[in-house]
């Protein structure tokens, strides 16, 4: 704690905090052009200079921690002139095209020019020919670029793509794709978000609207369980059509990061829906007849609660395989960890010194976790170990050790981890049977995880601990929840959480899986007549617009999600919806007596950690110092520990022949992302170079994928981001991936070229 003064105001800095960070937290204004809170100080603009009493010259406030009792002045005549000159230099040859620039109205250069009253120019330089670059979703105009380097830093330090760099050349300097002719990255669009001027823009948004005409709707991203905070920006569709339309998505880029699906996949609304009374009557009849409701986790907490209430009243079976698997995993985990939920959040991952990731193809399963890992790696060189059968090239810059294991041998891998991470107590707790079945030679041979690899991990861990590492995180993904041995895996994970310094995080596979798992009482088996909600049933309710009764998509609803941080985050209505909602059905059936679905927010089950707070009381913002004020965090309760021993390790399953994986390509999560006009694409079999060579296939070939009596005809595409294996996604609803992958995420198939 350091006490010092800014402009006479007494302030206190925490350890390591810079002058600028303290000033921002305290609401004292220091102008900057290149400073971005979530990356290391870039120090390219020199606008943030301040005067310190007794120190000759100016001091860069963005990188200087305060000294005790320093007296700092943020504004004086000299500072003003210095800053004014910097702004004049930025303006040299900056095209005077504010009239058409997309950034006009929210441009840092415009703002600071007005602030420092730049009304004439003394400096000049010879203008250069720098043509506009066209990069897929993005466009880069070098002549508008002020070379603040925010985009380069965010791409390297937060995203981990490391796809762009600066080509130095004096006045000719510009941003170029790193080691490539053209940009090939995961298209997160974060460079567009952080660009203070109109140099990086979204091609889709270009020239379609001005910053000041758009209405901002704070919401939560509906695509994955990170439920990132974002703003939908809407305006009337056109002169002829006054209906609002989402033009773009913006985020609080200073503090949080959005992936490409969130940024570009925004128009997944169910637009044409109307109040179809006939269909509604049929729906009510179907509900009276049905004994099962099948649904996915792309629903709000309140809808989940409505489904649960319907179950309590009419005894429906609630079927949601993916959430059920997660729920079971979480229950078993709790019984051995003693906590009702996992503890780490994304912030904890950012602060972790040692991370082990298992069972998740993270760059497409949950990009937010990937970004958090990148931050931890770049900020304090954390060790990141990844266990997975598929080699993900996107993680290469981040992962310090990749352990490739055989498909299906997660139990062996987790057991080996328990062996090195936990002490004798834990092994005693695991029980004699487990200990006897733990034959490291056999496991190592069958899983293809070398004993020396495990020793190497232990060595790295010890090294980190010697250097004062404090936070350790084990991140587990969907491979484990769907694994035939999921129950035992969950128990082992619980042991790790309880008996080692590692905190375990269980990534919820879909947007609101955690919420559904906590709120709904899920069943295993389907009955005879089912209602499908966003799933095919005998009567289908669909937000995709292809069912028997329309439902609102998640950008047309208000409600809450329970996200990966165990946080209940609110989302708001961005687009109007004129059809029926689930609450209407519940009202008709006599289950609900509320007018709006959000009146259920305060009724979410308290015994699971939810709080009794009205929807309208929930915050949805970030504070000046980056504190996330969104909704509230679930309370973690104590759970009685199970006394049962852990089952012995089963013989590892053998996967021979051609094995494919189930995951989505980057930029896709579900049929909803695939509905968005920028991301729309046909589902393919995405294969690595080695996979193609092994089967003698070429990109563009048509193949038949066969398993049992199911055949899927599909085109093959080469995916440069994976080094081995092939995968199928579920985002294209025309391809019946579900029936191929009944439970586990890997499956054996026969692939024949057509």
């Amino acid at each position, binding site marked *: 704690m350091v006490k010092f003064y800014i402009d006479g105001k007494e302030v206190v800095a925490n350890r390591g905090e810079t002058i600028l960070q303290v000033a921002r937290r305290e609401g004292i204004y220091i102008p900057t052009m290149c400073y971005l809170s979530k990356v290391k100080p870039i120090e390219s603009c020199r606008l943030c200079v301040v005067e310190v009493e007794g120190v000759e010259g100016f001091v860069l406030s963005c990188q200087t921690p305060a000294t005790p009792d320093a007296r700092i002045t943020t504004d004086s005549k000299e500072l003003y002139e210095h800053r004014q000159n910097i702004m004049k230099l930025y303006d040299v040859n900056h095209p005077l095209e504010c*009239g058409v620039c997309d950034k006009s109205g929210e441009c840092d250069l415009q703002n600071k020019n007005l602030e420092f009253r730049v009304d004439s120019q003394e400096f000049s330089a010879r203008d250069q020919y720098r043509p506009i670059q066209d990069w897929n979703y993005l466009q880069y105009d070098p002549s508008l670029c002020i070379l603040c380097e925010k985009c380069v830093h965010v791409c390297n330090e937060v995203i981990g793509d490391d796809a762009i760099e600066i080509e130095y050349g004096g006045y000719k300097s510009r941003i170029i794709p790193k080691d490539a002719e053209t940009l090939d990255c995961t298209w997160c669009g974060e460079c567009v978000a952080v660009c203070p001027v109109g140099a990086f823009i979204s091609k889709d948004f270009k*020239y379609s609207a*001005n910053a000041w005409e758009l209405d901002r709707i704070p919401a939560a991203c509906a695509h994955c369980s990170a439920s990132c905070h974002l703003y939908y920006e809407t305006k009337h569709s056109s002169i002829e059509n006054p209906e609002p339309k989402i033009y773009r998505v913006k985020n609080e880029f200073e503090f949080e990061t959005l992936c490409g699906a969130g940024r570009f996949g925004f128009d997944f609304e169910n637009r044409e829906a109307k109040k179809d009374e006939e269909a509604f009557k049929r729906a009510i009849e179907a509900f009276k007849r049905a004994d099962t409701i099948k649904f996915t986790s792309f629903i709000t907490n309140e809808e989940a609660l409505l489904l649960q209430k319907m179950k309590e009243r009419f005894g429906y079976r609630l079927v949601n395989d993916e959430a059920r698997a997660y729920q079971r995993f979480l229950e078993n985990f709790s019984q051995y960890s003693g906590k009702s939920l996992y503890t780490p959040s994304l912030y904890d991952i950012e602060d972790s010194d040692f991370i082990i990731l298992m069972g998740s193809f993270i760059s497409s399963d949950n990009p937010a976790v990937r970004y958090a890992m990148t931050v931890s790696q770049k900020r304090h060189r954390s060790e990141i170990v990844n266990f997975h059968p598929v080699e993900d090239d996107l993680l290469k810059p981040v992962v310090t050790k990749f352990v490739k294991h055989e498909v299906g041998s997660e139990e062996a891998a987790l057991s080996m981890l328990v062996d090195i991470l936990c002490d004798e107590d834990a092994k005693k707790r695991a029980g004699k049977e487990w200990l006897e079945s733990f034959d490291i030679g056999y496991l190592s041979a069958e899983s293809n995880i070398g004993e020396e690899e495990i020793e190497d991990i232990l060595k790295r861990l010890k090294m980190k601990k010697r250097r004062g590492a404090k936070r350790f995180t084990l991140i587990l993904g969907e491979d484990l929840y769907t694994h035939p041995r999921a129950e035992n895996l969950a128990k082992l994970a619980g042991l790790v959480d309880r008996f080692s310094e590692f905190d375990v995080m269980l990534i919820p596979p879909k947007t609101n899986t955690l919420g559904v798992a906590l709120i709904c009482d899920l069943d295993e088996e389907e009955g005879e007549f089912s209602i499908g909600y966003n799933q095919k049933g005998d009567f289908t309710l669909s937000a995709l617009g292809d069912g028997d009764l329309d439902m609102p998509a998640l950008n047309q609803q208000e409600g809450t999600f329970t996200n990966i941080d165990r946080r209940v985050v609110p989302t708001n209505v961005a687009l109007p919806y004129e059809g029926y909602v689930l609450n209407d059905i519940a009202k008709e059936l006599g289950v609900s007596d509320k007018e709006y679905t959000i009146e259920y927010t305060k009724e979410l089950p308290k015994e699971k950690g939810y709080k009794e707070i009205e929807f309208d009381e929930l915050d949805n913002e970030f504070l000046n110092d980056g504190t996330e004020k969104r909704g509230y965090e679930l309370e973690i309760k104590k759970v009685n520990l199970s006394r049962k021993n852990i089952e012995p390790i089963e013989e590892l399953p053998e996967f021979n022949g051609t094995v494919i994986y189930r995951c989505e390509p980057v930029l896709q999560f579900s049929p909803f992302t695939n509905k968005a006009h920028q991301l729309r694409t046909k589902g393919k079999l995405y294969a690595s170079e080695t996979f193609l060579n092994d089967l003698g296939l070429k990109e563009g070939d048509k193949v038949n994928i066969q398993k049992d009596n199911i055949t899927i005809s599909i085109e093959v595409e080469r995916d440069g981001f994976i080094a081995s294996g092939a995968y199928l996604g579920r985002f294209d609803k025309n391809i019946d991936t579900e029936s191929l992958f009944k439970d586990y995420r890997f499956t054996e198939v026969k692939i024949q070229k057509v």
Partner: protein
Amino acid sequence: MNGLEQFKDRNVSQNYYRVKIEPYPKTPWERFKRVVRRSLRLELFVGLKITLMEMLRFKIHTIQYPKEKLPISPRYRAVHKLLRLLESGNERCIGCGLCEKICISNCIRIDTRPDENGRKIPTEYTINFGRCIFCGYCAEVCPELAIVHGQDYEHASEQRAQFALKEDMLTPLDKLKEQKEYPGFGAPTPAADKLIKKTPLAY
């Protein structure tokens, strides 16, 4: 003498005089007598005398509208026009949206998109003349002098909307030569050249 003296003299009663009004007739008989008196004295023609004399002299002061029209102030604000560049005939409007923003009755709307050369173009431009108050802010804010007020005050139509579309306001290409520069609000002042500071160039 600066012409303000007349306003400084606040003793407005000095030129007043009392009008002699004969008493009103009270009984019907008196009223009848007044009608007869007025009719026989041909008072009507006293009033008409001037008119008749002017007619015979053919010194007519009336503007013969619609054959004749009074010149109106260049700053008159009638229905808007969208101008073109004189040399190329291209539309001046760059679609910056400032008119849309500044419009206090919120009656302007523009649709824009990039054209095939990557430039921003307004695909459609409308003004809701049912709401427009002809304040002239749009013309004043326009950086390109593209949206201006016209001089044409004769607009009769079945619907107000018939003036409001882009093709109604835009100068037709064949009438480009007749397009006049707008001197109203927003146009450069006569001294504009002197106020400009030149940006230095390195070549």
